[in-house]
């Protein structure tokens, strides 16, 4: 007889072992290590919740403090490698295999550990791709998650930073897994039930509130006039021409400058209501002026942003909020919106090669992908038309029956020709290739593939890759906006002028933009304090962003 319940009995055994350290479902932080040692088995697949924003840090510390004699060889399947503990567990042998998505601040250390062979790496994923694998071949046995509060039944309030939690719990709780949540406080009644209590097996009362990184705050005081110029070109040369209403922005200063130019420069161009109305976006503080000026109809968020909670509460017509008033974010749904329902992704990168491939990997840092490739790719499963998508599709196709045409999502790279410390952005060969060779990866970690990129915007101009008809034209279009980098200086001048005549390469003057007009005075807010004023005092910036 086949035993159809051998796996299904496992959670009961694990939960029974863990109950020894719990009062009902509730476990004090001091007993978190003992709880994990009781519940975890060697070789388990474990999701330790953490992404580019919130962290189940109390549980991360507890896991790192487990006895490697009892808990070892875990297979970590998690969005973010962000905290030191996320890598400590690989040094002690508690964990061995890793499948993940994002590793911003630990990028240097993870690269060294990969070179050193301390981590058996499965793959680096995009968020949505990793979430998808939670439901196929990377389903967690145990999930360690974070919430704001819980009642004694385990009903969980995840608060504005819901992020990955519903996805992780869905995959674990419904496939014989055990879910352990850390919460900032145990309450009589949660403000709203984000996760029903019957999916939560243990609730750990954390010693301090879970950490959230203010990753999406860009200080307007640090924006340069070059960034203002590039933002003007993007608005006039792309947003206005394609009539982009549904979009996602990356986290760089260039896109933040676009947000701050909407109520000023965008207003003067008469674009209000015609562009940038629907967003898949975290609550960027730099979007406040555009919201207050009536540009933005709605915003769905992957997560929240430190200091924005009160503002969001007072703008429920714009943001997705619960009956309790606070933001409801959801990374999986917002990534899906970014993939299928946005007509434009625009973001920055560290390196672009002559085919338009881009990467944020350098020789000694593996930053991972996060969600950018989900937004920054053309989804072949899309079927609904929009004017923007159709126009881009026509430009890409050139010939053939229009009724059988695919549209195209616009994927725009907004980069200065030289990045930080005057390192050229345009390169012959991505560092990602060298890294893949050294670490034995089968695939080089490419953030956005060249065939998904439709436009590159630099301070020198806009290259429209949709209109290029062969690889040589693409290369010259890219060289044509690469400024004084080696790549830019290697251009075929006659060919670039020909591309310019065809509107494939466009300079600021071709767009009717005078570079001397690119003044910081155009920014709707020039400082974090200006953003506070725009918000009517509702935005409460963290101390590291305040100069008052």
């Amino acid at each position, binding site marked *: 007889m086949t035993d159809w319940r051998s796996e299904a009995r496992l959670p009961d055994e694990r939960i029974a072992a863990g109950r020894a350290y719990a009062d009902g479902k509730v476990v004090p932080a001091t007993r978190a290590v003992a709880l994990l040692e009781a519940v975890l088995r060697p070789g388990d697949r474990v999701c330790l919740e953490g992404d580019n924003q919130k962290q189940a840090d109390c549980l991360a510390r507890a896991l790192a403090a487990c006895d490697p004699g009892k808990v070892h060889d875990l297979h970590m399947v998690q969005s973010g490698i962000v905290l030191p503990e996320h890598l400590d567990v690989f040094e002690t042998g508690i964990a061995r295999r890793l499948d993940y998505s994002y590793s911003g601040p630990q990028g240097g250390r993870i690269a060294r550990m990969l070179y050193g062979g301390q981590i058996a790496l499965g793959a680096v994923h995009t968020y949505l791709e990793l979430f998808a694998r939670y439901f196929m071949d990377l389903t967690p046995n145990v999930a360690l998650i974070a919430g704001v509060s819980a009642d004694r039944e385990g009903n969980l309030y995840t608060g504005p930073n819901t992020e990955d939690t519903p996805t992780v719990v869905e995959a674990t709780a419904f496939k014989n897994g055990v879910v352990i949540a850390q919460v900032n406080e145990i309450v009589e009644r949660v403000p709203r039930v984000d996760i029903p209590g019957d999916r939560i097996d243990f609730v750990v009362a954390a010693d301090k509130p879970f950490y959230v990184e203010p990753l999406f705050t860009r200080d307007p005081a640090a924006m340069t006039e070059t960034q203002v110029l590039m933002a003007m070109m993007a608005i006039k040369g792309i947003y206005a021409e394609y009539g982009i209403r549904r979009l996602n922005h990356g986290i760089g200063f260039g896109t933040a400058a676009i947000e701050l130019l909407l109520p000023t420069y965008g207003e003067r161009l008469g674009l209000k209501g015609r562009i940038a109305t629907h967003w898949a976006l975290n609550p960027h503080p730099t979007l406040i002026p555009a919201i207050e000026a009536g540009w933005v109809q709605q915003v769905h968020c992957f997560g929240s942003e430190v200091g924005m909670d009160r503002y969001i509460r007072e703008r429920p017509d714009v943001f997705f909020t619960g009956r309790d008033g606070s933001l409801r974010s959801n990374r999986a749904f917002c990534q899906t919106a970014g993939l299928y329902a946005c007509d434009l992704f625009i973001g920055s990168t560290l390196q672009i090669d002559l085919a338009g491939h881009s990467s944020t990997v350098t020789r000694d840092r593996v930053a991972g992908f996060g969600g950018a490739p989900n937004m920054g790719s053309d989804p072949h499963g899309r079927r609904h038309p929009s004017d923007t998508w159709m126009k881009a599709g026509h430009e890409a196709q050139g010939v053939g029956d229009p009724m059988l045409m695919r549209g195209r999502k616009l994927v725009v790279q907004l980069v200065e020709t030289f990045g930080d410390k005057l390192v050229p952005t345009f390169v012959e060969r991505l560092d990602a290739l060298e890294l893949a060779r050294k670490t034995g990866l089968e695939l080089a970690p490419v953030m956005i593939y060249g065939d998904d990129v439709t436009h590159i915007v630099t301070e020198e101009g806009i290259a429209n890759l949709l209109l290029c008809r062969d690889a040589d034209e693409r290369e010259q279009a890219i060289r044509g906006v690469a400024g004084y980098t080696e790549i830019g200086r290697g251009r075929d001048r006659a060919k670039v002028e020909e591309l310019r005549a065809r509107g494939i390469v466009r300079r600021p003057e071709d767009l009717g933009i005078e570079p001397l*007009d690119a003044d910081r*005075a155009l920014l709707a807010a020039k400082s974090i304090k200006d953003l506070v004023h725009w918000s009517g005092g509702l935005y409460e910036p963290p101390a590291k962003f305040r100069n008052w």
Partner: protein
Amino acid sequence: MAAPMAAGTDPRALSWYEATARQRVAALADPGTFHEFLPPTERRMSPHLPLFDLPRAFDDGIVVGRARLDGKPVLVAAQEGRFMGGAFGEVHGAKLIGLLRAARDLRPAAVLILFDTGGVRLQEANAGETAIAEAMRAIAELRAAGVPVIGLIGGRAGAYGGGGLIAGACSRLAVSEGGRISVSGPEVIETNQGAEEFDSRDRALVWRTMGGKHRRLIGGADAFAADTVAAFRAAALDLIGRAPAFDLATLEAEQARLEARIARFGDCRDATEIWARMGVNDPDAVPAMTTASFDETVARVAEAHHDAR
């Protein structure tokens, strides 16, 4: 593109924090009255920076000249914080000292120093340090001769290092919220004493310790200006009118003021404790206060008003 794309139409509405040194001087002075000494066309540049393969500025990061302020003749020096953080090098310092010495003969109604500096330029440390000392001596001589020296502080770089020392030698100081006055900068303190002593990335801490509001409340600065050229102009005119005499009585009063200050607040761990002890009702609300309500708070604080300096 239409002409008024860039700045607003009224130059005096310009943000002091955002403006360049030349924009500040041009908008501060009576229209058309500023005449620059050793302008960029003279190309008096640093002789040292090429040794370090560093770019130079034609004015070495400082604008000096004469102008009129509400009809009165003044001499003006303005540091350009965007060039090497407004730091003092040999030529930069010599231009300021030359201006201060010229004032002894020209006897203007005042000398205005528009600080925007991180201190001495590391690449020209000896010349820079000498310039700080010579500038302080020149200010003392000038004040003794009856010419007030007014410092205006509201630029991105603040008035740090030797700039903070020179500011301390001035007759009167005006500061805006964004302006900072100190000697050792936040990063220097953190490097020497640790992040527990002073976390340089906690910008709110930096500003409530060194920023304009704190300096005004403890009497380190004598006027608080909104972040516009117009507000700094009004503050400068006001301060010229009430510059203290530079005599033994003033110096003794200053010594007494500083001794009383350290006795009263020396054990405080945070600026908010000082404000509370001064009788500010809601110290935590001070950083977010508007200029108008902050002015009201200042009016009620005794330490903010004194004749010393």
